[in-house]
């Protein structure tokens, strides 16, 4: 029963994430300010989804280096990106994907 519930919850999180991610990408498509991007309500709502959304963020990062870095940091409390990678979206994505593999999340 709990497996069914977990699967249903994961499916609901995935559906909610898909909607919020689309909203956020559309609303911030012209912005260079990462401050404005991460303060957008849809981005904050994704962070509020908590730990269940982390594998979904990592999956999206595997596809392209979307700026999920602040969301991952906020949810996990971790930051695997060394300062010398700041701004290098590809390297930052690689750092987070390596962290995900270490934690069995991707």
């Amino acid at each position, binding site marked *: 029963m709990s497996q069914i519930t977990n699967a249903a919850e994961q499916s609901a999180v995935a559906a909610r994430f898909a909607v919020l991610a689309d909203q956020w990408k559309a609303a911030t*498509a*012209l912005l*260079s300010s*990462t401050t404005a991007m991460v303060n957008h309500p849809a981005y904050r709502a994704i962070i509020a989804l908590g730990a269940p959304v982390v594998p979904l963020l990592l999956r999206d990062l595997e596809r392209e280096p979307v700026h999920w870095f*602040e969301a991952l*940091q906020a949810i996990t409390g971790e930051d695997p990106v060394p300062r010398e990678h700041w*701004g290098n979206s590809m390297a930052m994505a690689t750092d987070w994907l390596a962290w995900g593999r270490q934690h069995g999340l991707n």
Partner: protein
Amino acid sequence: MPAFFEQVRTALPRLTADNHVETSPASWQYNCVAWAAGITDIWWWPSPGRYWPADVPREESLAAFVAALATLGYVPVGSAALEPGLEKVALYAMGDQPTHAARQLASGTWTSKLGPAIDIEHATPDAVAGGVYGEVAVIMVRSRLA
């Protein structure tokens, strides 16, 4: 008419089908400030986690953005007009909040990276002003690199 233009026409109300052309696919790897500096693999912004030149204040102010571009040899100038041998950059702002940067090409047209979206060439700096980028606040210039 390109689909992207349909999406942004409200946000960039002075952009018309006739005053711009798309010149690259979308990319999360660089933004307008990096593109103004001629860089296509780094995202420049003064917030933590993004590249910002050393010794320039990490603050979202025009002064900090002018100082960042000064590390590349740019200095403020009064006119956006094309001058042979010179490369100009336009900084856009809403009040003192920097929003965007565009770079003048040798042809006299301007090139912009639109957030994580596409690059475009536009006829004038004003073509991408008036919406989410506010207005042109500062023009800077340096010698055009070979």
